[in-house]
């Protein structure tokens, strides 16, 4: 019998807000966190909107000196981690287990892209001697994990997963396994991303991966809809506190849900296009169910990857049908919270597991907004438009990334 692992703290930074209440009520009320981008002049770009974190003032949050040393993506991670730690009730100044038993796994698809661009401008405009000494420690993908471990003095397993849009799900799954394996008792885990930059926006736009619905940004992210035309670039962080059952019980922690299963796979076919039959995605889901000793029929809700791309949503639907069989068409509920938030890339699996944990704990399922008419082959119950107050006991969360990475997580009611 392996160790049980509980989710006890949640924290988010998103376009829908930074508190759990704003985040959750926004999802249930069908709000969109998407709007015009104001981080830089986008007039020369094909896309002018996204899921931007609003009113972010690094100096006010970190002090000027610290703010200069930490890229926006790691700032998001630190703030989401602080919320999650507070929410869990753990005081790391007097931790329930020694700091060597506490670790940090934070994923990010790209890392400090803002810093990379700023210093590249310095290189071109001022020369190599004016490249900041903070460049590398700001832009590295593991800066978020490192900064969190430093802030709280955590000295256990600490790493950073980089599997594009599956990064956070892989980080959380790996953290779950680190506790099961006995490497750690408490993990701070999730993902963070701040890639709404010239290169991020321009690069994804050039791939034709992004929706170009510039005249109606809040209706642009429409997973599984027949008029979907690409994903909406977003930024933010989602961080969770997970801990071994005995630690949570001993300190009387509030438990949102239990982490039950984790599966991952590779498509092994193309660097960006998903396997059209969703075979890789299906293997990750099957492995996840087997890991959690869970029958498909026990899963009540799936928080889908559902990015609002033509190929991706269809492939995921095929994969869900392959794994869940009759249950997929009869009882299983699916939604994509990317319809509200846009796509947080390497942070998406973090905010989506936060939403999944709240779905169990608060007995409500967020809808897929903007799903007016399902696209061809998209024929599951995607909870269109309106949230459902319904108790589900098992929830799966899917995340798939460029590179062909697939990750699925399973959580359950305690």
């Amino acid at each position: 019998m392996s160790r049980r692992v509980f989710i006890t703290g949640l924290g988010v930074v998103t376009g829908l807000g930074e508190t759990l209440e704003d985040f959750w009520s926004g999802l249930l009320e069908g709000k969109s966190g998407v709007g015009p981008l104001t981080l830089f002049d986008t007039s020369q770009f094909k896309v002018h909107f996204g899921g931007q974190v609003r009113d972010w003032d690094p100096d006010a949050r970190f002090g000027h000196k610290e703010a200069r040393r930490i890229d926006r993506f790691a700032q998001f991670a630190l703030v989401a981690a602080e919320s999650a730690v507070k929410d869990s009730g753990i005081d790391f100044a007097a931790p329930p287990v020694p700091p060597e038993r506490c670790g940090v796994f934070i994923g990010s698809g790209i890392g400090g892209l803002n810093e990379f661009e700023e210093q590249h401008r310095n290189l071109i405009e001022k020369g190599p001697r004016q490249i900041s000494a903070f460049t590398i420690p700001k832009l590295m993908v593991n800066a978020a994990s490192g900064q969190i471990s430093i802030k709280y003095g955590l000295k256990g397993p600490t790493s950073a997963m980089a599997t594009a849009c599956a990064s956070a799900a892989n980080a959380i799954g790996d953290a779950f396994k680190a506790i099961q394996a006995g490497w750690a008792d408490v993990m701070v885990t999730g993902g963070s991303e701040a890639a709404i930059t010239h290169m991020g926006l321009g690069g994804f736009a050039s791939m034709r991966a992004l929706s170009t619905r510039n005249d109606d940004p809040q209706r642009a992210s429409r997973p599984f809809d027949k008029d979907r035309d690409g994903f909406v670039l977003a930024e933010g962080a989602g961080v969770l506190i997970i801990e071994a059952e005995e630690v949570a019980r001993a300190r009387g922690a509030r438990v949102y849900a239990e982490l039950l299963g984790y599966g991952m796979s590779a498509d092994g076919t193309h660097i960006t296009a998903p396997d059209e039959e969703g075979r890789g995605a299906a293997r990750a889901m099957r492995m996840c169910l087997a890991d959690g000793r869970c029958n498909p029929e026990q899963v009540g809700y799936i928080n889908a990857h559902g990015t609002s791309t033509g190929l991706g949503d269809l492939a995921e639907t095929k994969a869900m049908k392959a794994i869940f069989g009759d249950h997929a068409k009869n009882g299983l509920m699916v939604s994509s919270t990317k319809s509200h938030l846009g796509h947080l890339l390497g942070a998406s699996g973090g905010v989506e597991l936060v939403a999944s944990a709240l779905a169990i704990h608060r007995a409500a399922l967020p809808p897929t907004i903007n799903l007016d008419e399902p696209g061809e082959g998209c024929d599951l119950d995607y909870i269109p438009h309106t949230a459902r107050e319904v108790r589900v006991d098992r929830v799966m969360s899917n995340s798939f990334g460029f590179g062909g990475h697939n990750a699925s997580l399973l959580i359950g009611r305690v």
Partner: protein
Amino acid sequence: MSIEERVVEIVSEQMGVAKDQIKRETEFIKDLGADSLDTVELVMEFEEEFDIQIPDEEAEKIQTVGQAIDYIQEHSK
């Protein structure tokens, strides 16, 4: 602005301390908590502001605000 005022301005901005707390004898590491990255950044800011180049072996000797002001006064064009 004098060289001294411009140096104080840069140190204040970089290290996040009030200008009235920055004296000639203020040490970057001991008094302002600068680490190795901060000291490199400070030197780079001085180089850019005063259009000079400070060789690494000279930069290592600059440990106080006064030493920075003196070096810049001697070497700025």
